[in-house]
């Protein structure tokens, strides 16, 4: 039993579960106050994603996005680069893959890989910019990535409104993608799988991105923990001066960290357009990229834990959407529960400090108790 708990992967898993379940308990207490039917509302929240097949699909689709943005953030954070550029990379990834899905007259088997690869290349380039600025001009990455996000979003909107949107459309939306420009279902359309294929394609948008995301996690894990590049990344993350002293090309490593982080961000964007929306829409990602920060922090920036935290966090979000639709609990309340989770995760980091303070208090009191009798005897 002791051995079971000393396994770091299991401990990490338990830690994440504990943070999330504590937040859920508090969330329920709050629900008790704001809902006429708190149990019904909370049931919708907790079991929602499993009540209908399409809801299950929503959960998995959203989790795939979360895992990809989580990986993007984790790679940068692991190198101690506080990059917030995932948003911009995601938006440009969505734009580029969407344009190819819409306009390039190729069959699925060529169009989809082309769209994905181009999205990744653009993510790489868009990540390169703040990396270059950080490495060579020591530009603060928080500022530069946020500014680049704005540029990316406005560029996206501009191209969508003035060039991509059909002239007669009432909304700022592109024409729907032809079927060749959509990601195919993760179930192959084979005769003996016919039933399963129909079930998934009519109810969900779970596509081959499912396989790509598994591959992405494995690649990210190996990249960070097993390769020479990963060693460089971890060393610049833990002590930049040491890395430089030891002969690591810190500038190039910094740039590549941002660029590779961008690849994953752009893939998330491609997933959102080509798997979920099947068109280029405005405000494609309101806050998704920032949710990536939560996913990454929950996973302690370890790519191996990101599927876990991505699925868990995705489940909460999916459940929250269902609760909003099927009960009297408002969107705001759901945001509060999500905020609570972030709080609990950070609280988990504060805990060691709290423990130390408590112990110091104890020690002080113990000293007093021991010393006082001695002091008393002296007075007599």
């Amino acid at each position: 039993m002791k051995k079971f708990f000393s396994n770091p992967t299991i401990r990490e898993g338990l830690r994440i579960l504990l943070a999330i379940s504590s937040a859920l308990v508090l969330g329920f207490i709050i629900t008790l106050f704001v809902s006429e039917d708190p149990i019904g509302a909370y049931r919708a929240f907790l079991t929602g994603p499993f009540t209908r097949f399409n809801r299950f699909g929503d959960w998995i689709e959203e989790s795939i996005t979360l895992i990809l943005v989580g990986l993007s953030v984790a790679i940068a954070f692991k190198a101690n680069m506080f990059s917030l550029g995932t948003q911009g990379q995601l938006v440009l990834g969505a734009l580029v893959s969407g344009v190819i899905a819409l306009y390039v007259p190729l069959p699925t088997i060529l169009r989809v890989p082309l769209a994905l690869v181009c999205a990744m290349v653009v993510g790489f380039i868009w990540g390169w910019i703040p990396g270059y600025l950080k490495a060579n001009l020591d530009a603060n990455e928080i500022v530069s990535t946020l500014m680049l996000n704005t540029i990316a979003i406005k560029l996206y909107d501009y191209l969508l409104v003035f060039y991509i949107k059909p002239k007669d459309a009432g909304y700022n939306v592109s024409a729907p993608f032809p079927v060749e420009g959509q990601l195919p279902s993760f179930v192959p359309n084979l005769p003996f799988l016919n039933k399963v294929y129909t079930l998934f394609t009519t109810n969900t948008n779970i596509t081959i991105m499912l396989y790509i995301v598994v591959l992405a996690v494995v690649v990210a894990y190996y990249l960070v923990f097993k390769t020479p590049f990963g060693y460089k990344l971890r060393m610049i993350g833990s002590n930049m001066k040491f890395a430089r002293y030891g002969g690591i090309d810190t500038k190039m490593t910094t740039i590549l960290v941002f660029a590779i982080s961008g690849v994953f961000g752009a893939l998330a964007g491609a997933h959102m357009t080509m798997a979920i929306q099947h068109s280029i829409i405005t405000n494609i990602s309101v806050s998704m990229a920032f949710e990536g920060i939560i996913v990454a922090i929950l996973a302690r920036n370890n790519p191996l834990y990101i599927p876990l935290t991505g699925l868990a966090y995705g489940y909460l979000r999916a459940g929250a959407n269902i609760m909003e639709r099927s009960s009297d609990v408002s969107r705001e309340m759901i945001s509060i529960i999500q905020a609570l989770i972030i709080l609990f995760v950070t609280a988990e980091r504060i805990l060691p400090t709290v423990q130390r303070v408590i112990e110091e208090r104890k020690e002080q009191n113990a000293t007093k108790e021991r010393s006082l009798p001695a002091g008393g005897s002296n007075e007599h």
Partner: protein
Amino acid sequence: MAPLVEMRNIVKIYSNGVIANNGIDFQIEKGEIHAIVGENGAGKTTLMKILYGSEQPTSGEILINGEPVIFKNPLDAMKKGVGMVHQNFMQIPSFTAAENVVLGHEPTRGISLDKKKAVEETRKLSEQYGLLVEPEAITETINVGMRQRIEILKILYLGAEILIFDEPTAVLTPQETHDLFKAVRVLIEKGKTIVFITHKLREVTEISDRVTVMRNGKIMGTLKTADATREGLARMMVGREVFLDIHKQPLKRGRKVMSIKDLSYVSETGRTMLRDLSFNLYEGEILGIAGVEGNGQTELVEVLSGLRAPASGSALVGETVITAKTPREVRQAGVAHIPEDRLSNGLSLSASIDDNLIVDRFFKPPFKKGVIIDHKVVEDNGKRLIRQFGILTPNGELPVSSLSGGNMQKVVVAREFSSNPKILIAAQPTRGIDVGATEFIRDQLVQKRTDGTAVLLVSADLSEVMSLSDRIITMFEGQITGVFPEASKVTEEELGYYMLGIKRQTAEEMEALL
């Protein structure tokens, strides 16, 4: 009569389970100079922190003049006359000396600081105790010795009777140390009591009345300094015989392996830190650089290891220019570097010991196999070096931050020595580490010399430079002021004159010897 301070059965167990003090009985007599010596981690600093209130003991009691006291914080201790002169000065660089002396307890006029009074008080104390300080000088512009005196005045201003010094001479030149000791004697004349923590046994015999030796959280003994010998104290500290004299084989100088020509360096702020330095390194020879810190040694080492680019001049290893190259290129040319600041440059504290041991080789086979790093090879490399260099750790997967100071330095030394360098640059290789590790590292340096490596040794510890080096160069304000081809034939005082630029050899005198 009761001793001035009595600490009874002090036990301190930190929350991580480390027993820093294990049943300590310790007394300080009024008017004495009491030295505390011991290896790093022996518990000296913890004991003193308990005495001046910044740590609370897990059990045990403190009596001052026979009266039990409880210090919850340093202010409590200060009220009873116990003050600490910190090693890292607690001063605000942009304030004047006087403002720093009164910091936290400023004389006021209405709501504003009474600057005139602060200056007066500082001058008065300064004269009374013979601690020369210019009250109106801006702290950041004055030298380390005077900054230390500010620190002393600060606690005298608060009425300290017992002054605790934590390794006061670590940052001082021989001349400044001399001045400090003079001031300490004045303090004693004026009825103060001094406790000082040190690593340097020579200072113990020079100034203290009594000496307490600590090891592993316990007191090994307290003796009158007059009855103590350095060898005896060293034995008590480490529990075994220590050779304070270094045994090395006669010099067998080989080929010239590095030549430095007219090297100059200008700092980011435009100060010329190195001025036309030229010298050579030879196989099998240790060249020591003696100098007061801040006279360009740091810059020299960083230029030679590729961390800074020179303004002009060059350094060559064989025919290869290594200046203005990347640290990787310099390492490839056969230069290894033990950096002066091991915590910020030499190690990644949060990374594992194994990872710290491969920063210069992870990209080469057998570490790199295909596109991945072979974990097994990394682990074996760690195991081998941990064993070979006696790094005290259960395994190589633990972060370096879990090690003691001496063992951290052994990690750096293990990595740099095991890369089989042609040239080894060792900056402050034994600073702030315990006697056992110091002895080990010095032995290893001598071993490298025997093996034919050229060693450039930079150290603030003059006796280290003198006992290890074959040849010594003195540096002052970025220039070479003297070269001494036979290190064993020069005295500390003589070196001191050159280190302070009072004496200089002419270029002609030096030319053949560099």
